[in-house]
Structure formats: C-alpha cells, structure tokens
C-alpha cells in the first residue's frame, strides 16, 4: 500500500472520529450559530416600515413612495396625535408641518420631509464606519478561532496516539508521513467546509441586513479571497500543530507545547484589528505570510489592493507553507516515538534519524 492510500485511510478515520465527537461538533455549530446571529439579527431587529399617522393627503402620498414608512390616514390632527398616544402609530405629521412622536425625534421621518442640499462624495468607495470595523474584526476572529479550534484538534489527535501508545503499531504499519498527511488533510477539509459555510452565511446575512451594494461589492471579493488564503494559511501551520502534539507526551502537556503556535495565530488577529486603519501596516501584513490570511482580505475590503496583490501574497504564502510543512514534519517525526514525557524542540529537530 502506498503512502497516499494510507493517508486516505488515516484521514477517513480522523473525519469519522471528529464528527462523532460531540464537544467538537458543538464547537463547530456554535461558531456557525454566531455567524448566523451576527448576520441575520440586525435585519430582524430593524423591523418593518414605521407607521405615520397624518390627515394631510400630500404628506401621505409622499410617505407612500418611501418603503420605510407606512402612512395611516386619519380624519384630523387630533386623531393623528391620539394614534401616537395609543401606540398605533410611531409618529404623526400635523399642520405646520409639525412632527409628533412620544420620546425620540424620528430623524428618518424628519429627513424624508426635508429638502436636503445636494451632496457629492469625494471617496465613494469608502465603507461606512461600522462596517470598516466589523469586517476586519470578523475576518480576523474567524481566522483565529477556527485555526485554534481545528489546529488544536490535530495536536490532540497526535497526543492521543502517543499517550495511548498506539503510535508504535501505526508507525510499524504505515509511513510516518502518511499519518501526518492524513491528519492534516482531514482537518484542513473540515475547517475549509466550516469557513465556506461561514462565508455563505455572512454574505447571505449581509444581503438580508440590507448592507448597501457598494459594501457588498467589496465584501464579496474579500470573503472570496479569504477562502484560499485561509486554506493555505491553515496548511502552513497544520504540521506545526501536529508537531506540538507530538512534543507533548500527554494531553496535560499540550497547553504548554502548543503555546508558541497559539501565539502565532493570535498575533495577526490582534495586530490587524489594532492597525486596521493604518494603510502601510496592513499592506506589510498583507504580504507577511503569518498575517496575510487576515490582512490581505482586510486590505481588499478597504478597496486598496490592485488585482495582482492577492495573487502575489498567495504565492508567498504557498512557498512559506511548503517550508513550514517540511519543518513541522521533521519536528513531528523527531518527537513522535519519544514516549518519555515532553520532548524539547531541539531534541525533536535533531533526532529525526530515529527512522
């Protein structure tokens, strides 16, 4: 049996075991649930059109053209005021013209009835402030949390095989590389499915929430590019996750050995959010492999990137991933069969000749 067939068998087992693991499935579902909630709730909370009571036919006709309002025709101004007091209407327009409401000034209604000066936007691509914060934050958070969730799964699965001692039988049956490749492939696949689902949910949510088309125009490529960046970014760190799993002899050592990789995932999350409006910093991070999966989509969303920029960053990322694969698999192989407690990085690096 060749390495590929063996790796497929290993991957199939990993998938089966993980999908039967209730804690893991729960983590996946809750991430998805948050995405759904974040996307759809604002749209639901926004509610339907606002009911406006008025006796004035012209006003009623004007409001009827605006889908944000629902005119309620009443006999006179007193009746209109009564409707507002009863709660049957949110606001009323009476002679004057005067706008009545209970506590807050209905700004949208006032604006709809006013004549606004003509505005000319100098940077029409600029995204509104809420989205400018929300989207980088969401991309960084999704990268960070799914990488941590699925990366830790790789590490735990390696540690489990070491701790239960089955690893010696496995190594005697299939090439070590097949074991590693199978685990990495299974988790990459699962996490990519998760990310794709999140992406679809986010875009659908954005449409529901009525995000204006200009922002959608930027959001779509940002999320579209995020997928390949995410996949290669995940693979880049996957063998390192496996290596820290092998360095730990037991589950309780895993927090300690995995800390450097956890920090590696956390750093771009914090930096990209902190420096999101600093164009030069984001440009640098968009090319730096460890932060590229977060920073490049953010840069794309900001509308600052030329078409070739994500391609170039992706190539740099892929080259780094290839290097990291070698590095991680060497550490993994060097520590896999050292079953006496924790292995140091240096020992693992040097002792590859064990095979």
């Amino acid at each position, binding site marked *: *049996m060749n390495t590929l067939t063996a790796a497929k068998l290993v991957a199939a*087992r990993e998938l089966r075991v993980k999908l039967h693991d209730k804690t893991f499935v729960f983590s996946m579902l809750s991430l998805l649930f948050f995405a759904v909630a974040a996307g759809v709730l604002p749209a639901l909370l926004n509610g339907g059109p606002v009911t406006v009571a008025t006796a004035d036919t012209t006003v009623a006709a004007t409001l009827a053209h605006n889908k944000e309002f629902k005119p309620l025709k009443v006999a006179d101004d007193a009746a209109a005021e009564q409707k507002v007091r009863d709660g049957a209407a949110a606001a009323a327009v009476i002679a004057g013209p005067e706008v009545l409401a209970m506590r807050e000034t209905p700004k949208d209604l006032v604006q709809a009835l006013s004549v606004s000066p003509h505005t000319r936007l100098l940077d029409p691509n600029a995204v509104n402030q809420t989205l400018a914060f929300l989207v980088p934050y969401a991309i960084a958070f999704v990268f960070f949390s799914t990488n941590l969730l699925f990366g830790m799964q790789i590490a735990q699965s390696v540690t489990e095989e070491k701790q239960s001692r*089955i690893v*010696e*039988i496995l*190594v*005697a049956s299939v090439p070590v590389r097949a074991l590693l490749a199978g685990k990495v492939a299974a988790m990459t696949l699962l996490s990519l499915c998760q990310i794709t689902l999140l992406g679809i949910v986010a875009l659908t949510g954005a449409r529901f929430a009525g995000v204006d088309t200009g922002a959608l125009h930027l959001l779509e490529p940002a999320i579209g590019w995020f997928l390949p960046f995410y996949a290669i970014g995940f693979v880049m760190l996957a063998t390192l996750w496996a290596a820290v799993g092998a360095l730990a002899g037991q589950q309780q050592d895993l927090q300690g050995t995995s800390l450097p990789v956890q920090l590696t995932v956390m750093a771009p999350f914090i930096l990209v959010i902190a420096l999101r409006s600093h164009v030069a910093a984001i440009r640098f991070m968009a090319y730096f492999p460890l932060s590229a999966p977060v920073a490049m989509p953010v840069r794309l969303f900001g509308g600052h990137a030329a078409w070739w920029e994500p391609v170039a960053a992706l190539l740099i990322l892929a080259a780094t991933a290839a290097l990291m694969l070698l590095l991680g698999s060497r550490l993994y192989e060097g520590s896999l069969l050292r079953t006496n407690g924790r292995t140091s990085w240096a020992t693992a690096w040097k002792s590859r*000749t*064990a*095979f």
Partner: protein
Amino acid sequence: MLYVDAVSRSFDARRVLKGVSFAVAGGRMTGFVGANGAGKTTTMRIILGVLAADEGELTWNGSSLTREARQRFGYLPEERGLYPKMTVADQVVYLGRLHGLDRAAAVRRTAELLDRLGLGERAGDKLEKLSLGNQQRAQIAAALVHDPELLVLDEPFSGLDPLAVDVVVQVLRERAAAGVPVLFSSHQLDVVERLCDDLVIIADGMIRAAGPRERLRSDHTLPRYQLRVDGDTGDTGWLRDVPGVTLLDLDGARAVFELAPGTDDQEILRAALARSPVRSFGPVVPTLSEIFREVIR
C-alpha cells in the same frame, strides 16, 4: 525466513546492540530471552522498522527487508495501546486496513478473530470499557488481523490470565504450523521453555546463544546423572566409593553425581541394579533458566 545480520544500534553514546545476528525460521516459534535492558525491544523495533539500525542488515526470504514486506508483519509492541475511545471492532478493522486489507476482508477477519479470542460480545464496546485482560486480547487481535507473514511479539503473555495465555498460545501455534515465523520475547522462562522450538539468548546487546532448543539443551548438558533406587531396599551411598564419580547431592535413595571423562555410565547402572531395583537413571537435562544463567554469565 528472517535474518538479522550484524545489527548495531546506539542511543546517544550508549551502544545497546552490538552486532546482533540470528535467524527466525518459518514454521517455528522462536523464543527471545534476555534480562531487562539486554536489547530485546530495540531488536524487535528494528525488525519492524520503528527504529533504524546504525549498522547491519535485515533480510526477508533472501532479499533486503523493505517497507512493503514489513507491512505484512504483525507486531505486538511492549508498550501496549489502542484508541481508548474507538470500539474494539472498529480499531481492529482500521489496523487491518492500514496493513493492506480491503474493507470486507478486514471486517470478516476481525469478527473471526474477536470470536476466537473470546471478545465477540464486546466487539461494539469502546476499548476503555474493557478490563485490562480483555484490552490485551484486543491488542493481540490487532497484531493478527491481517494474517501476518511474520509475527513479532514483545512479551505477549504479560498481563494475560492463564486462560487467555492458553488461547493465545494456541493461536500462535496455529500460525507457526501454517509456516509463519514467530518471534516472541518473554521474561517467563517456563513459558518460553514450553513453547519455543528455537531460542535466542541476548545479554548486554550481544547474542549469547541461538539455535534449536534441543540442541542448546544438549550443548549445555553436563556429564551429570541422577540415580533413583527403590527406597525400601536400597540406598545410593555406595556411589561415594566408585572411582570417577563426584557426588553432588545425596538423599538416601536418590543421588546426583558427575562422571569423570572416560567413565562408563552403563557400568554405574549395572552396579546399581546388582544392589537393588532401580527406579530411574539418566542424564540431568538442564532447564532453560539454568542454561540462561550459564550463557549470560
């Protein structure tokens, strides 16, 4: 036939195997004995390819041992372990497939073996729910599921209750009878003595003795005899005065003695018969532990 040829291996500066050579022949049970730290486990790991040899070579049926050939070997490591949260049947099937069986064959073989080892009813249970003895049986099923062409078992009987030992012995004997070479290590020399056809004795990383059990026995048999006569009518005290006889142990009707070279054992027997009825007379065959103690000295 597996040949281990002049294999050496060091860990850091410590040489744990120093030119180890021996053969494991098809159809025979080869016992591998040695004290703790003598190099048994390291040798077995090298045979399975879990460790690499620094020097030396392994050949399998005449050609250099490859990964493909090793994949058809069965291995029971000293450090036992399976997936605690997987069911017994699932993991035996999985390991069978990793050894190259297709799904249907792996499922069929797993069911057969688990029944045979008395685990049929526990097949659907998670491993961690089983008693230690039953986990051990599952481990043996994992080593045998793919009908291995060579079996390497590191301490296969430790942790097994006597009933399970019998079942496992029977299964291993069947494999050997089918022509499979079986190499197993054990601390329990009486078990090895009962089971093995061939014997390999290792001490301090060197092979001290290797070959068929009977030949090792005769090689290490001293010119030592035991005479037992009828207890009511005779005794053996007269042996004291026979030239060429050195008494080692005398207990009325029973005596153990050594004969000087050139002394005829049949003369002694005739002399004994002339005095009283003889119940038994013959050379003292050394036990495995005696041979072991002698060769590792």
